[in-house]
C-alpha cells in the first residue's frame, strides 16, 4: 500500500494512485543469481584441525564466550593447550597479514579457553552409546583428541597410558612456564567427563599386549608419541653431564630433583632445545644453545626463540659440536662454525663445517635435543617406514583393526596441533569403518586476499600480547604469557576480515536497488526475494568478504 496524504477532514490531499509495482516480477529478467554461501577462510584451512575461526570470533564479539568455546570444541578439545603452545600455522596464511598485520588467532583461542575454565561441556556432548568399544594407547594430544571425538559420538573409550599421569609431552616435555598444569588438567578432566577411562601406569609391551587389546576391543589406536632421543656420534658423549634434553625436562616436569652446573650447553634448535634452555635458565644456569643452521631454520615456535633470547640465553647459530671435553665429567665442548650448502631431503640447507673455525666453550653439562623417535621394538608385527608406524590414508596400520596417529605414525609429526588433527581424523576413520559414518562432504573454495573488498576496512595494528617482565620471568616457572583482556580480544575479533563468513553487516541489503533482500528469521540472516532480484550482482560484488556467490541462472537447480 502506498502512503496517501490525508487532510484534517480525513480526505486525501490530492488524487494519488495507491497501486504499487509488486505485480511486476522483475526476477524474470535475471540470468545471474546471487545467493548466500560462506566460503572457507584460509586460517581454517591452515589450521590442521580446521577450527572455525571467524565463526567463533563472531561469538567473542557478542561476548558469548561459551558459544565461542563450543565452536572450537567441534574440532579441538584442547584450546587452552593450543592457545599456549601451538605454532599457529593458521596465522601464517591469514589474509589480514597482507593488509596490515595477521590476526592474533592463537591469543584469541587462548582467550576463549581461559574464559571457560569454570565451565563444563554442554549436556548435548553426551550421546547414547553407539555400541563401539575402542582402546587407545597413549594419552598425549593425539590419543586425547581421538578419545574425545569418539566419546562425543557415543563410543566407549579406554586409554592405556604408561606414565603415571595423562598428557604425554604436554605434561612430560613442555615446561610449566608455558603450559600451567591446571589448564592441562582441566581439559583432560573435560574429556574424561564424557566417560573416557584413562588407565595410567599401563605400558603396552610390558603391562599389556597388542593381541590382548585387539581381542578385547573393536579397534586399537596407537598414539605412543616419540620419546627416544636420536643417537649421536659425538666423541665424549658418554661423559657424565651429557644427557638427553628430554630426559632433563621429564625429570623436571615430574618434580624429581635435578642438579645442574653453572654453565649449560644445549644442542639443537627445536622446541625441546628451547624448553631445556629456558628451564635451565630458570634453575639459575648460564645457558648457550648451539644450532647448526641459522635462526630462520630453527624448527621451534618463533616466539619461543625470541623469548629465549630476551631471557639472556646465548644462541650460537651455524655452529656444530665436534667433541665433548672432560675426564669423567664434562668440562667443555669443542665446536666448529658451519656455512649453509644445498638443501637436503628435509628441504633445509645442509650445514657444512668451515675448516679452521673451531673453538672451545666451557660448560658443565651438554643437553642433547636433536630430535626424538618412537620406540617400536616391543611391537615387531607393525609395519614401519623405518622409524615410524606406516599408516594409509585412513590411519590404518598393516594389522587389522589397529590404527596409529600423532608422532608415532608416519605423516605430519612434531607438533601438538598435528597430533590433535590426526587423532581427530583417526577417530572419524575408525567410526567410518565400523559404523559407516561418513566424514563431512567436500569443502567450499578458499577465500583469497584479492577477494576481500578492502574499501570497507581501515588499517589497525595487532595487539601486543601481555607477558611477564623478563626479569621476573626467569626467576620462576610461573607462566610467562598472559591472556588478552576482554576488550582487546573483542577488538581483535572485530579486526578479522571474517573471510568467507557473513557477519551480517547489512551491506548487501542496503545496496540492493530492487529492495529484494530482507532480514531472515530463525538463524537465517537474509533472504533474497527471487521474484524481484534482477541479478545485478551488486550485493555479491560489495560483500566485503565473499560470503555470497553469483552463478548462472540456468545452472541453478532450484
Amino acid at each position, binding site marked *: 500500500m*502506498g502512503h496517501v496524504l490525508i*487532510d484534517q477532514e480525513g480526505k486525501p490531499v490530492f488524487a494519488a494512485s495507491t497501486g504499487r509495482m509488486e505485480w511486476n516480477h522483475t526476477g524474470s529478467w535475471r540470468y545471474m543469481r546471487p545467493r548466500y554461501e560462506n566460503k572457507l577462510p584460509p586460517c581454517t584451512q591452515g589450521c590442521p584441525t580446521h577450527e572455525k575461526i571467524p565463526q567463533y570470533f563472531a561469538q567473542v564479539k557478542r561476548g558469548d564466550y561459551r558459544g565461542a568455546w563450543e565452536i572450537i570444541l567441534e574440532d579441538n578439545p584442547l584450546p587452552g593447550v593450543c592457545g599456549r603452545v601451538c605454532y599457529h600455522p593458521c596465522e601464517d596464511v591469514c589474509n589480514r597479514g597482507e593488509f596490515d598485520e595477521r590476526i592474533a588467532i592463537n591469543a584469541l583461542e587462548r582467550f576463549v579457553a581461559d574464559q571457560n575454565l569454570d565451565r563444563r561441556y554442554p549436556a548435548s556432548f553426551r550421546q547414547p552409546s553407539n555400541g563401539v568399544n575402542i582402546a587407545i594407547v597413549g594419552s598425549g594430544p593425539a590419543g586425547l583428541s581421538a578419545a574425545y571425538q569418539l566419546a562425543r559420538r557415543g563410543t566407549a573409550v579406554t586409554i592405556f597410558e604408561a606414565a603415571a599421569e595423562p598428557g604425554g609431552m604436554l605434561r612430560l616435555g613442555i615446561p610449566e612456564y608455558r603450559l600451567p598444569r591446571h589448564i592441562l588438567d582441566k581439559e583432560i578432566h573435560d574429556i574424561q567427563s564424557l566417560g573416557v577411562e584413562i588407565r595410567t601406569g599401563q605400558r603396552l609391551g610390558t603391562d599389556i599386549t597388542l593381541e590382548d587389546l585387539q581381542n578385547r576391543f573393536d579397534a586399537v589406536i596407537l598414539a605412543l608419541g616419540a620419546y627416544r632421543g636420536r643417537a649421536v656420534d659425538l666423541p665424549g658423549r658418554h661423559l657424565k653431564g651429557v644427557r638427553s634434553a628430554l630426559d632433563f625436562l621429564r625429570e623436571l616436569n615430574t618434580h624429581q630433583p635435578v642438579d645442574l652446573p653453572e654453565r649449560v650447553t644445549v644442542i639443537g634448535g627445536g622446541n625441546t632445545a628451547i624448553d631445556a634452555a629456558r628451564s635451565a635458565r630458570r634453575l639459575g644456569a648460564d645457558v648457550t644453545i648451539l644450532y647448526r643452521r641459522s635462526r630462520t631454520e630453527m624448527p621451534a615456535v618463533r616466539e619461543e626463540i625470541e623469548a629465549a633470547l630476551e631471557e639472556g640465553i646465548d644462541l650460537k647459530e651455524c655452529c656444530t659440536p665436534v667433541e665433548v671435553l672432560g675426564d669423567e665429567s664434562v668440562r667443555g665442548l669443542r665446536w666448529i662454525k658451519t656455512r649453509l650448502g644445498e638443501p637436503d631431503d628435509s628441504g633445509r640447507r645442509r650445514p657444512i663445517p668451515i675448516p679452521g673455525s673451531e673453538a672451545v666453550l666451557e660448560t658443565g653439562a651438554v643437553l642433547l635435543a636433536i630430535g626424538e623417535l618412537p620406540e617400536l621394538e616391543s611391537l615387531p608385527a607393525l609395519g614401519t617406514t623405518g622409524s615410524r608406524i606406516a599408516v594409509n590414508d585412513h590411519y590404518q596400520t598393516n594389522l587389522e583393526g589397529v590404527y596409529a596417529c600423532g608422532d608415532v605414525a608416519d605423516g605430519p609429526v612434531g607438533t601438538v596441533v598435528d597430533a590433535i588433527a590426526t587423532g581427530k581424523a583417526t577417530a572419524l576413520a575408525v567410526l567410518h569403518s565400523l559404523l559407516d559414518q561418513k566424514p563431512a562432504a567436500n569443502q567450499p573454495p578458499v577465500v583469497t586476499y584479492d577477494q576481500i573488498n578492502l574499501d570497507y576496512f581501515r588499517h589497525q595494528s595487532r595487539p601486543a600480547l601481555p607477558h611477564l617482565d623478563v626479569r621476573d620471568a626467569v626467576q620462576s616457572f610461573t607462566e610467562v604469557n598472559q591472556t588478552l583482556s576482554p576488550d582487546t580480544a573483542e577488538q581483535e575479533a*572485530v579486526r578479522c576480515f571474517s573471510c568467507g563468513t557473513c557477519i551480517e*553487516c547489512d551491506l548487501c541489503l542496503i545496496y540492493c*536497488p530492487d*529492495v529484494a533482500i530482507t532480514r531472515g528469521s530463525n538463524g537465517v540472516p537474509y533472504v533474497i526475494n527471487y521474484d524481484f532480484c534482477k541479478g545485478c550482482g551488486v550485493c555479491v560484488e560489495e560483500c566485503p568478504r565473499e560470503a555470497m556467490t553469483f552463478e548462472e541462472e540456468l545452472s541453478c537447480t532450484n
Partner: protein
Amino acid sequence: MSQIPVSVPAQEIMGSGHVACPGCGAAMAMRNALKVLGPKTVVVIPACCWSVIDGPTPHSVVGVPVIHTAFETAAITATGVRAGLRARGEEDVNVMAWAGDGGTFDIGFQSLSGAAERNEDIIYVCYDNEAYMNTGIQRSSATPWGAWTTTTPVNNPKSRPKKNIVDALAAHHIPYIATASVAYPEDLVKKFERAKSIRGMRFIHILSPCPPGWKSVPEQSIRISRLAVKSRVFPLFEVLDGWKYRLTQDPEPVPVNEYLRLQGRFRHLTPEAIDQIQQDVDSRWNQLQQRIASSF
C-alpha cells in the same frame, strides 16, 4: 571498528517491481532518500528515466504520492505543490523534485534557477547519470569531457567540460547544497536528514551510475561510484548559504583512470586525454580546497 560500519534507516518506502535496469544507481538513490524523508513526502518527477522506472499509471513504486510532469518543469511543479499544501495548511510534508541531469542542467534549468532565486521551500534532487539516458544516451551539459554518448561518438567525443551545477546553484545563495554518492549511503542519508531539517531551497546532486549508458557492468555500480569519489572526479561536500564549503568524505585518493577504466564510455581515451582529465580534476579539487579553507 575495522570494517567501516554503514547504517541507514530501516524503513522502506520504495518497493520492489520497478523497471530500472539491473544495477541502476538512480533506483538506489531514491530508495535511500525516501528512507529519510519518510511517508509524508510528495515526489515530483519530470520526463526522465525515473518517470519510467516508477511504473505505468495507476501503479507507482515509490510508495508516496508522485506527480509526473513535463521535462522542463520539475522545480516549478514542486513549487506549486508546496503552495497548494501551504494553502491547505499542510506544513509537515516534504516536497521533493526528482529530476535527471537533462531535466536539471539543461531544459529544466530556467525553472530551477527561478525557484532557487525565490528560495522556494523544496528539496530538488538531481540524479545525474551524465546523459539523456531515457531517450538513448544523448549528451547533456552534464556529460563529462571526453565521454562517449550516441551524439558524441568516439571519433568526436564530448569536447566541452561538464557544467558545474553546484557552482551555478551556489550563485543563487540557497541555504543548502550537497553532493552525494550511492556508494556512501550513510553520507547520503545524513545529507537528506540535514536537508529535511532546513526550510527553503535545498539542492542535492547525486552521481548515479547507469550500466547501459556508461557501458559498465551492473555489479560494479557501487564500485564505480566509490571510485568517482576516491579519484576526486566527484567529491562529496556541502555548501551552506552558497559560500560555506565543507568536505564530508575524504578517502585515500586514487588516479582518475581507476574510475575511467571500468566504463566503456571512456574506453577510447588516449593516455594524453586521461592526463588532461587528471589535471582538470586536480585543479577543481584545489579550487574546492581553497573554498573550504576560506569558508569558516
